[in-house]
């Protein structure tokens, strides 16, 4: 090993690999780092998570990426939230929006006023006070204005894009900034006999790549983190037992909606992600309750247009790597763990891994303290996402299949049960500071899946019902007006210079 950490090898060229390469090449430019990314054209990438969370915008901004150009290159659409169908009960639907419901009143949460009105005399659905929900339902979009405390701007947005194109886009970006791409398949890894660190990887063609730090983005296999270092894996199937998926793109049906859809099935759930040029589809399922053929049939028989490829099968075990940073290997992406993409967290967890690595990037040597900190932070991220995903399964009244009956009997982690109890008692959301999902997300899922609080915050008692009714009505009308003057997503993409021109169609009004 040379003095200092200068040689970085990224193993794997999917979304995780190229996001890592792009970030390191940008953040550590002019430092003379030797960045090499090894990938093989023969190995397909999983391309998991075509839908993202709003945080991805900060990642792109930090890289100095031009938004319209990126969207055009990746066939991206805007995303205001996720529509969940059939989760609470068959026939239910709700949108988990990226943004607040209403506006706080005198510092008190808006939903508490709504709960009081609803308990007293009934109220319109909470969604009627959410700009992103109403805009999404009507296929409309605009970027928020500066003032996030104003209705019509109190929301965030993300993207739905072709992950393969995104990886390609970032490959160009990275190579322009000095990242060397090495074609080849890894045959094995050499361990340093003294430190136990990975000294080099050997490729099938006999070539050898040495590095001081390896970033394992090799996917489920975890070529270095698991196969070479035997780090171990915490199996979370007890909580999230879905273990297979089948994915297939199809032609779009003309609805360019700014949201992803997740529809609950008897043994899992099905995703639909509308891009500019096609629609991504997939079925995540628990193999104990459905065969692979039946799962594939359920998916292909419900496509909105002709399939554009053969269905691709994926096998996984939900959980996380016991250490995300072990010796001189940091794993990012599917090698770090797998949580089903129900809330579009796959790319977000990649982003968290990269951001944390940049902050803790080693200088002179691999320091166990850096690894400890990295592992603490990423462990918390994974755990908090896990709880939020599990909420979708346990907040259900469905009993029409063995899987749903299983979840209705499940004992959930204390951390989640306490959240549910506090919500059911008085609409109170246990807050935390570090974690991706903020209170509006929890409110959306819990209310959307029919967890109705018995009471409201007593502080709302100082407002009369008439006063609350008037205030809410003003906010409802203001929200509706803001949506009325919002263009369709298709029109906005055109105006914004983000339309790829591949197959753009307007949403139905």
């Amino acid at each position, binding site marked *: 090993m040379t003095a200092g950490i200068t040689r970085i090898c990224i193993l794997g060229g999917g979304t995780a690999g190229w996001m890592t390469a792009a970030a390191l090449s940008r953040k*550590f430019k002019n430092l003379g780092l030797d960045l090499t990314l090894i990938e093989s054209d023969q190995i397909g990438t999983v391309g998991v998570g075509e839908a993202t969370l709003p945080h991805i915008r900060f990642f792109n901004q*930090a890289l100095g990426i031009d938004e319209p150009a990126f969207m055009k290159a990746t066939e991206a659409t805007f995303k205001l939230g996720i529509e969940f169908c059939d989760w609470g009960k068959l026939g239910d639907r709700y949108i988990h929006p990226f943004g607040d419901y209403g506006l706080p009143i005198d510092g008190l949460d808006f939903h508490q006023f709504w709960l009081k009105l609803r308990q007293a005399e009934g109220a319109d659905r909470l969604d009627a006070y959410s700009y992103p929900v109403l805009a999404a339902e009507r296929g409309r979009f605009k970027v928020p204005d500066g003032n996030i405390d104003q209705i019509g701007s109190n929301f965030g947005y993300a993207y739905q894009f072709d992950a393969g194109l995104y990886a390609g886009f970032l490959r160009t970006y990275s190579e322009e900034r000095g990242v060397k791409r090495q074609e080849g398949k890894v045959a094995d890894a050499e361990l340093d006999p003294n430190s136990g660190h990975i000294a080099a990887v050997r490729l099938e063609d006999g070539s050898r790549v040495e590095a001081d730090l390896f970033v394992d983005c090799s996917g489920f296999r975890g070529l270095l983190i698991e196969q070479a270092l035997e780090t171990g894996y915490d199996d979370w199937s007890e909580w999230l037992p879905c273990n297979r998926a089948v994915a297939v793109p199809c032609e779009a049906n003309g609805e360019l909606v700014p949201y992803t859809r997740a529809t609950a099935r008897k043994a899992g759930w099905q995703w639909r992600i509308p891009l500019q040029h096609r629609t991504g589809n997939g079925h995540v399922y628990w193999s104990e309750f459905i065969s692979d053929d039946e799962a594939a049939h359920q998916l292909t028989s419900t496509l909105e247009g002709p399939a554009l490829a053969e269905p691709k099968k994926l096998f996984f075990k939900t959980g996380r790597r016991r250490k995300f940073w072990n010796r001189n290997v940091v794993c990012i992406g599917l090698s770090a763990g797998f949580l089903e993409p129900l809330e579009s967290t796959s790319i977000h967890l990649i982003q968290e891994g990269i951001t944390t690595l940049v902050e803790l*990037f080693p200088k002179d040597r691999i320091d166990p303290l850096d690894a400890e900190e990295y592992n603490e932070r990423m462990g918390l991220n994974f755990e908090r996402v896990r709880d939020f995903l599990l909420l979708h399964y346990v907040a259900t009244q469905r009993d029409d299949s063995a899987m749903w009956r299983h979840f209705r009997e499940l004992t959930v982690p204390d951390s989640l049960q306490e959240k549910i109890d506090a919500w059911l008692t008085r609409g109170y959301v246990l807050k*935390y500071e*570090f974690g991706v999902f903020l209170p509006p997300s929890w409110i959306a899922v819990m209310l959307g899946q029919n967890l109705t609080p018995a009471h409201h915050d007593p502080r709302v008692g100082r407002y009369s019902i008439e006063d609350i009714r008037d205030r809410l009505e003003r906010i409802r009308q203001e929200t509706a007006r803001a949506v009325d003057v919002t263009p369709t997503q298709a029109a906005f993409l055109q105006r914004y210079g983000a339309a790829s021109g591949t197959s753009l169609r307007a949403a139905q009004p």
Partner: protein
Amino acid sequence: MSLNRKTIVVCGGGLDGNFVALSLAKTLGADFRIVQIAGSERRADNVFYGSATSPEGYNFLHALGLDERTLLLKSQTAFSYGSFFRRWASPQPWILCHHAPFPILAGIPLRHFLTRSGAPLEPLLISARAAALGRFAHPPDDPRNPLSRAEYGYQFSPDEWIELLDSLVANSRVERVRADITGIDHQGDTVSAVQVAGRERVSGDIFVDASGPARHCIGALASNYRATRNVAACAERQDVPQLGPPCRVIEAGPSGWTSTTHLQDSILKIRIDAADDNDLPATAIQMALGQLDEAWIGNCIAVGHAAWAIEPLTPAPMMLLQRDIVRLQELVPGSDDMTTERREFNRRFKDDLAHANSFHDALYIPETRPEAVPRRPLSPGTGSEALSRKIAQFKNRGILVSYDLEPFNEEDWTQNHLGMGRLPRQHDRQLDAIPVQQAEHDLARLQNVIDQMVSRMPPHHVYLARFKAYLEKKSHV
């Protein structure tokens, strides 16, 4: 929500009792009756709430009616940029000042520049510079103005604030019972009434124990106060002809410390020592620092010194009291089953105490010269592992480890670490891309901007006098 009107009985009339009674009366509707039982004796433990607030107190106080007009015209309250620590861990004085997020240069936090250059932090913080020179001005809204980063709290006398609050409570809907508590009626963990001297017992649905270390209410239940250390306090107020600087001075002694707080017409000196110090005057007020295992038992919620006591080395006591009250406001039960509220209150209570204790403990772990801080044991329990991680990560490479919703922010922790001599071994590697000369130039420019701004700020006493004149004129219009 039960259809019946509920009664909340607040036991205690000190700073804590008045704050909690007034805040409940302000935030709850007419479906809650608020009764306060305030004894005749002035509680001595108020001195342990200290003499300074943090910037987070501004909105809280304002909402209760303690706006600047009231505080400055009706008491001797002054502005506070923080506290200087003298002979504390270092021969040089250093400041723990209130400040908006520190500047980020080229996407890299300021502390990494200091690690590389060895430059001190204080000249780059406007509130620290202004405090050192005894100057003050309100921060403007314009974020481009460097003064907008100078956050401030207040320097105050607890006794004066009790009087202000007494007056506000008297003019509120709080029903006040002026009597001493003589006993509690309870069955198991459920309190039904408070017995008071010479009057009928006071019944209620929810009882808030704000009776200080007497713990009249929660002490009658199955509570357990875990004392960690006994200390004694002496407070003395001396008249001065002119207001001093907008910062306290904390000075270390062998077994304790002394704080000097500048009020409009006087200085307030508080000396804290180990309770077994032979040198203590007879008037010293004893206090067992520590906390309850559970601050909410049955239908009784302890706040302030009934639930905890922490030395007033920083604004922590006032921050914790505010957190107790906000936590209670957010969790006032809407039904008779209080299981959920109780669990959440106690969880947050323990977290808040652990974090505050962790911050204070960090002020007793000097990097060098262990004799340079007063002797005292560190807090046992949950905070210690978190503190070890914070210290190890900062010393390694200036990483600030944070936990959910800590009372002290990253700026506070940065100053705590650096003031105590904890210098990172290395800086963020992104900084290596910025030439040393350029970085030095950027820091010098930042310091120059701050120096210029501070030189235009008036002395604290001049500003406060002008501001009071403005407030008085405004109130006569």
